[in-house]
C-alpha cells in the first residue's frame, strides 16, 4: 500500500521528484570528487613510501620525521644489518630535479631518488632491467613519466639540477620502468645511490664529504609482524635514529595530515548540506501535503502506511540521485586527462556512496514526524 502510494505520487510528479534526484546527484558528484581528490592527493604524496618493500624507516632523531631534514650516515648500515631480525637495509636519498626534453615540451619536475641496487628502497622493474651498478648513470623511471611523456627503455634523458646558483645537466640511460611511484606530488626517477649523491642539488659544489649520507634507511624485517619490537630494538642499538613504520612516515610528511583533514572536513560539510537540503525539500513538500494526508487518515489509512510512504519516496529519490551522481562521477574521472590527482578506489567509493545513501533518510526524518503528526480532523477543516 505504502509502495503503491509512494510510486504513484512520484510517477505523477516526475518532474519535481527528478529535480530532487538531480540535486542529490550533484551533491553525490561533489562528495565523490572531494573523496577522490583526497585520495589522489594522498596517493601522490605517499605512493613511493606506501609501496616501499620495507617495513621500517629509519630517520635521524629529532627531525620530526622530515625526509628532507633527516640525515643518516651510511656507516650505520652495517650496525643495522647485524641486528637479529633485520633481513636487509637500503639507503634512500631524496631530492628534486627537472627532466628536460629536447623538443618543445616543458620540463617536468621529478623526485630524484637515490637507491641501492637490490636493496630495500629499489622498486621492482616492470619493463627493462633494474639498476645494476652503484654509480653508473642509469635510471629507472616512474611508469607515469613513461606513459605521459613517451619515454622508453633505452632512451637517454636529461636531468637538470641546481648546484649553487648554476644549472647542471646530466644525461641518464633509461634502463627500466617501474609502476607509479610518486613522491611528494612528483613522479620519481631512481638512480644509483652514489650517482644521486653526485648529481643531487647542493648548496655548493663538491663539499667532498668522505662519508656518504642518506636521508633515510629502509629496513626489511625477517618477520614483518614484529614492527613495534624491532623499531624499539633498532632505536636502542643504533644511536641518533628514530624508527617508524611506513604509515607513520608518510602521515608525518609535511602538510599530509592537514590536507587530508581539510578535505575530510569539506566532505563532511557537503554531506551535512546534503542532509539539510533534502530535509528541507521533503519538509516543505510534506507541509504542502497536510490536507491530503488528513484525508488519507480520515478515510482510514494507518499511520504506519503514511510514514512508510514518506520514507519510501525519500529512499527512492535518494537511490536514483546517488546512482546518477555516481555514474556521472565515474564517467567524469575517466574523461579527465592524466596528471590530475583524482583517484576512486573501490573501498572509499563504496563507503562514500553508502554514506550518501544515508543522507536522504536522515534528512527525511523530520518530514516523517510531520506526516505522523497530521490530524485526520484536518480533513473536516478542524
Amino acid at each position, binding site marked *: 500500500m505504502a509502495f503503491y502510494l509512494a510510486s504513484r505520487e512520484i510517477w505523477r510528479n516526475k518532474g519535481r521528484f527528478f529535480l530532487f534526484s538531480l540535486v542529490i546527484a550533484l551533491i553525490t558528484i561533489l562528495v565523490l570528487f572531494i573523496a577522490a581528490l583526497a585520495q589522489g592527493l594522498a596517493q601522490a604524496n605517499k605512493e613511493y613510501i606506501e609501496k616501499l618493500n620495507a617495513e621500517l624507516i629509519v630517520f635521524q632523531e629529532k627531525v620530526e620525521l622530515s625526509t628532507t631534514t633527516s640525515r643518516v650516515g651510511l656507516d650505520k648500515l652495517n650496525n643495522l644489518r647485524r641486528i637479529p631480525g633485520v633481513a636487509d637495509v637500503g639507503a634512500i636519498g631524496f631530492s628534486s630535479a627537472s627532466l628536460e626534453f629536447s623538443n618543445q615540451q616543458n620540463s617536468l619536475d621529478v623526485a630524484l631518488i637515490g637507491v641501492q641496487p637490490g636493496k630495500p628502497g629499489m622498486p621492482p622493474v616492470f619493463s627493462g632491467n633494474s639498476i645494476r651498478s652503484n654509480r653508473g648513470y642509469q635510471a629507472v623511471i616512474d611508469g607515469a613519466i613513461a606513459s605521459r611523456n613517451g619515454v622508453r627503455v633505452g632512451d637517454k634523458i636529461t636531468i637538470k639540477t641546481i648546484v649553487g646558483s648554476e644549472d647542471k645537466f646530466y644525461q641518464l640511460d633509461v634502463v627500466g620502468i617501474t609502476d607509479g611511484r610518486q613522491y611528494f606530488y612528483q613522479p620519481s626517477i631512481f638512480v644509483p645511490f652514489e650517482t644521486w649523491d653526485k648529481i643531487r642539488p647542493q648548496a655548493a659544489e663538491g663539499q667532498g664529504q668522505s662519508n656518504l649520507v642518506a636521508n633515510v634507511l629502509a629496513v626489511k624485517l625477517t618477520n614483518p609482524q614484529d614492527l613495534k619490537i624491532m623499531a624499539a630494538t633498532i632505536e636502542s642499538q643504533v644511536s641518533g635514529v628514530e624508527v617508524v613504520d611506513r604509515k607513520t612516515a608518510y602521515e608525518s610528511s609535511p602538510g599530509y595530515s592537514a590536507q587530508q583533514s581539510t578535505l575530510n572536513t569539506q566532505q563532511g560539510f557537503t554531506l551535512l548540506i546534503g542532509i539539510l537540503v533534502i530535509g528541507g525539500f521533503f519538509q516543505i513538500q510534506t507541509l504542502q501535503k497536510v490536507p491530503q494526508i488528513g*484525508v488519507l487518515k*480520515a*478515510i*482510514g489509512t494507518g499511520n504506519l502506511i503514511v510514514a512508510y510512504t514518506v520514507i519510501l519516496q525519500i529512499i527512492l529519490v535518494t537511490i536514483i540521485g546517488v546512482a546518477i551522481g555516481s555514474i556521472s562521477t565515474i564517467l567524469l574521472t575517466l574523461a579527465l586527462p592524466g596528471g590530475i590527482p583524482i583517484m576512486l578506489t573501490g573501498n572509499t567509493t563504496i563507503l562514500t556512496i553508502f554514506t550518501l545513501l544515508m543522507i536522504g533518510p536522515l534528512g527525511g526524518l523530520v518530514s516523517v514526524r510531520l506526516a505522523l503528526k497530521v490530524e485526520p480532523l484536518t480533513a473536516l477543516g478542524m
Partner: protein
Amino acid sequence: MEPILVTDAVTKIYETGNLKVKAVDQVSLEIYPGEFVALVGPSGSGKTTMLAMLAGLLNATQGTIRIDSHELGKLSEKEKTRFRREKIGFTFQANNLIPYLTALENVELMLRLNSTNSKYCREEAIKLLGRLGLSDRLNNLPKQLSGGQQQRVAIARALIHDPSLVLADEPTAALDTERAFQVVQIFSELIHEQKRAGIMVTHDMRMTQYVDRVIQMVDGKIYKIINDRAEIDALAAGGRYEAENTTKKGEIFEMKENQVMTLNNGLLAGAGD
C-alpha cells in the same frame, strides 16, 4: 429493523485553557438502513463536531455512539482507524481527492486500503463511476475534473467499500446550484438503493428535498427533527414555509441573536419550525 447508528446523549465539550465550549449537547438519534438524513443548523451549532465524533475522529465527552454494534468509545485508536476504513464512507467539503491518483484510483484506494482490490471490485468501481456520469473521466486526475465531478468521485469513494454509515460534510459547498442538485440527488439514490445510513451536513435548505429526515441543531442541541415529507418539502422550498411560521421563528431569532441567519433566495442556515 435494527438501526445502523444509535447515539445516546452524546456531548462534546471543548476545553481551551479555562474556556469550555459545549459544542454538542446531549444528542440522541437513530438512523436506519436506507435512510438519508440532513444535519442542518446555524454556523457553530456543532454539526461538524457531531460528524467527527460519528467517524471516530473525536472522542465524545459523554454519551455513547454505537455503529453497527461497535461502540466507538471502546475502540482503540488503531481499531478506530480500521473501523473508519471498513464501516465509514466519507466525503469532505474540499480537498477530497488524492491529487496524484486518477478518478478510478481514488475510488479503488478505498478497496486497496481494505485489501479487497480484486478485478471484480474494480469493475464495481467503474460501474459506480458510470452511475455517477463519469465513465469518460476514469483516468483523469482530480485537477482535470470540475468541482462537481470531483465531488461525485468522492461519493463513489464513500460508497465503494460497502460502508454502513456514509458521512458527507457540506458536499455541495463548492458547487453551483444545478450541479449541487445533481450531486445530492444521485447521492440520495445510491444511499437508498444500497441501504446505507447517510448523514449530510448542509447549509443549503434546498438540498433537503432529497433526504428522509432533517435534523436541526442549534447551540449543540437537537432543536427539531422533521420527518414529515410535506414539511421537509416546504422547508426545501424555502420562503413559503418560513412565511407560515414567522412567530415561532421570531422566538428562535431572539434566542439566537448572536448567530448568523441567512434567509434570502431559499438559503437558510438556522432553524425553522
